[in-house]
């Protein structure tokens, strides 16, 4: 299982843990198969990510990442990775930032 951003959820995905709001109130139970209505609820309550069955760990941004052309991706990585020389990329925070940087540059068309 792994976390996935609410924005990247689709109908039919299955929750592998309970979804709680920030005060700990139960919104959706583990095992729920997501419907449009559920996605609406998650967005309304400001839930940013949930555990979904069959996703790899640390793959929060899995969906948008795949839309980057592999050739462009490798150019961007060559350019950006050296800046992260002193960053511990096994940490979810730094890993997440690296992904965001690559996506940003891909979006801005920088090479």
């Amino acid at each position, binding site marked *: 299982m792994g976390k996935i951003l609410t924005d990247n959820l689709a109908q039919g995905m299955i929750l592998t843990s309970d979804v709680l709001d920030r005060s700990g109130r139960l919104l959706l139970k583990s095992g729920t198969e997501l419907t449009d209505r559920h996605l609406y609820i998650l967005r309304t309550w400001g839930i940013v990510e949930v555990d979904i069955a069959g996703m790899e760990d640390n793959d929060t941004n899995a969906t948008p990442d795949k839309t980057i052309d592999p050739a462009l991706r490798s150019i961007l990585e060559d350019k950006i990775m050296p800046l992260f020389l*002193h*960053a*511990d990329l096994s*940490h979810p925070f730094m890993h997440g930032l690296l992904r965001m940087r690559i996506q940003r540059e891909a979006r801005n068309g920088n090479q």
Partner: protein
Amino acid sequence: MGSYACEFSERPEMATNDTLNKKMMERLINETDSVYSLPLIYERLTEVINHPRSSITDITRIISEDQGLTARLLKLANSPMFGFFSKIDTIDKAATIIGTQQLQALALAVSVMEIFTGIPEELVNMKSFWQHSIACGIIARTLAIYHRDINAERVFAAGILHDVGRLVMFTTIPEIVKEMIVESREEESLLYWIEENRFGFTHANVGGRLLANWNIPESIAEPVYCHHSPVEAKKFPLETSFIHMADIICKALGIGSNGEQFVPPLEPSTWERMGIPAGSLVEIVRYAEPQLEETLAILGKNAS
């Protein structure tokens, strides 16, 4: 100032070259102090705000004397950063809605940005420097709001001022800074590590000391002093964490530049202290980004 991290002598690792380093730090601060000083209006504002018997009218009267400051504060209050529905057209309203302490923090950020001028372009592009600083301020403020910190504007000011020590170094020892920048390129080392090796202190420490010297509240000076060494923050560890992380976020995303080429390493305990899910990063940046351009336009005019 008590057990305040900005008290330079308390750093235990500096036993050997202690006196020399201390003298160097003093030199930097004194030289800066003799050339740049906070506008009188900020001091008067602080005096009035801290006085138990002053009213909002006293505060607004002082701010209103400075038309430039008034205009910028009003623009800030009406910017997307605050997202108020109705128009805030007087300082009086701003003070009531945003709060006097918050207004003071904003006035501080605006004032400091105005005073540092004439930095050689080859060291840093000032527009891009303030872009990094303002982005750091906005993201730190967003983290603070996310964490339901009531002092969000102080965090914003600390974020804007976090690299003020670099400006001190750029103006007082430009040649040495040039050498250090070259060294960091050649050695692929972080600039602040090189500063630490050379002087026993970093630009973060210099900035914190300068602010402490100017009697800026500790809740702003300590996070600046400790933004590369957040575990040293004794009184305001949470505020320091916001600045530490926001600085890393801005560097990692390539927003503006401050003379440092690498993304600084994360102190993992700050992340744990924040307790936010990794996925929220995207949300936080998405929330902060639209505020960036407008704030830069409001504050940046006088900072180029």
